């Protein structure tokens, strides 16, 4: 019972914060394509950038279950800000867990305080879901490395102070933490995206970017394994944020359907509208339970959390798309209008089905996992 009370208390605190600081400016941010510094500062003041780290390691979190609740609530208010929190958490976790002492000394505190934001530089023009195909190189240079290559669609890339960068070395895919102010780093802002428009995306060109040997995160060549662990955190965040979108759709739909009269009665009294609201309510709860399950497994250190997180992200992101589509449908033309919250949820929900493991990649992973556990492995495609 006490755990439930603690979670309820955390949710109430996060919800109040989002309602006061995040939701009121989300539509404006979406239109301007940026998140104002005051909002980022409010997140810092509330200590929410470091929720992925427990207090014992300098963070402000009390576990991954609470982390999920925070990301759900922020996702309910503004998916763009939740995206920034996602990648920052992934980079912070990598630094804390596998960073060298000198890297930790330099970056941990400013990242925990939100003075420096993290960017996650993985995707390239010819490497998205297929990480093994990436072309960015890190070649030995003196005592360190020289990084060259192009990264695309980097969330927060317009202002990230440190860039967790995946690059190919002689030993395979490796991971480096790069100072964003290095002269070998050039950023090209990406504007006018379909969804999460305020997440300050950028394409990032590394050209003769020199880093020391201590910039290596984990072992040289261990990048694929690290990516799996880090994407698991990102996936959990996106799953939780998707629950927030469903909840936002539900709340907007109930408000609208209760306030609008159609055919002589409240819209909410029409059975076909009730059907749409019912699907949203049940999907919200089902997705939330899947996320809570994945979060509890993470807190227990149970390896089953990796599969559970895939299940949660798959269900929550596809349910968010359904909910957002229905929320727009309920509001009709008003839901399609510029600045309509449900239109933003619709556009943001589509992004949730793509990032941190697309729906199709998750279907492959989940089906493979199920078959393997039941003894039906079958041949694997070459190169997988």
């Amino acid at each position, binding site marked *: 019972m006490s755990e439930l009370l603690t979670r309820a208390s955390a949710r109430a605190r996060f919800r109040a914060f989002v309602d006061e600081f995040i939701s009121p400016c989300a539509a404006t941010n979406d239109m301007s394509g940026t998140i104002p510094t005051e909002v980022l500062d409010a997140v810092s003041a509330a200590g929410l950038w470091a929720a992925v780290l427990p207090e014992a390691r300098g963070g402000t979190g009390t576990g991954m279950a609470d982390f999920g609740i925070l990301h759900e609530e922020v996702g309910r208010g503004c998916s763009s800000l939740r995206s920034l929190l996602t990648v920052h958490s992934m980079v912070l976790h990598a630094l804390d*867990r596998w960073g060298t002492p000198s890297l930790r000394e330099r970056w941990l505190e400013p990242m925990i305080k939100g003075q420096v934001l993290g960017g996650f530089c993985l995707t390239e023009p010819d490497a998205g879901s297929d990480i093994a195909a990436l072309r960015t190189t890190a070649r030995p240079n003196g005592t360190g490395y020289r990084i060259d290559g192009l990264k695309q669609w980097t969330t927060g890339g317009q202002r990230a102070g440190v860039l967790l960068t995946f690059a190919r070395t002689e030993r395979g895919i490796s991971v480096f933490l790069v100072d964003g102010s290095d002269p070998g780093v050039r950023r090209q802002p990406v504007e006018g995206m379909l969804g999460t428009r305020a997440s300050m995306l950028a394409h990032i060109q590394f050209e003769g970017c020199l880093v020391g040997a201590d910039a290596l995160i984990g*072992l040289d060549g*261990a990048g694929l*394994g690290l990516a799996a*662990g880090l994407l698991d955190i990102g996936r959990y965040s996106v799953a939780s944020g998707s629950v927030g979108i469903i909840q936002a759709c539900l709340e907007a739909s109930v408000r609208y359907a209760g306030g609008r009269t159609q055919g002589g009665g409240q819209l909410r009294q029409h059975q076909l509208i009730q059907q749409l609201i019912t699907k949203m309510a049940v999907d919200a709860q089902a997705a939330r339970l899947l996320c809570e399950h994945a979060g509890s497994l993470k807190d227990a250190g149970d*390896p089953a959390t*990796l599969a559970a997180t895939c299940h949660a992200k798959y269900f929550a992101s596809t349910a968010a798309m359904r909910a957002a589509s229905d929320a727009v449908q309920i509001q009709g033309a008003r839901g399609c209008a510029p600045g309509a919250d449900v239109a933003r949820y619709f556009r943001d929900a589509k992004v949730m089905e793509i990032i941190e493991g697309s729906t199709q990649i998750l279907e492959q992973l989940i089906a*493979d996992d199920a078959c393997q556990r039941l*003894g039906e*492995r079958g041949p694997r495609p070459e190169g997988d």
Partner: protein
Amino acid sequence: MTDTTRTELRQFVERRFAGIELRDDTDIFSLGYANSLFSMELVLFIEQLIQTQVPSEELSLDNFRTIDAMTALAGRLAAADQRQPAELG
């Protein structure tokens, strides 16, 4: 400790890949159906088993290829974990 660890590791892999024919020196990754997600599952399982984190310098795929290698890794980490208080003191 080592025998128990070896047995638990074997049971974990056998549960994950039902029907797998596994010797202690079988390279699990060469069988063709283990992926990077599974490698992280192995890291988490070993951490859960010995109640300590796998440090970055041990995150080599070679440490997770076989039951033998994982048993040896778990043994090294457990021994290092027991030494740590004395070394700190």
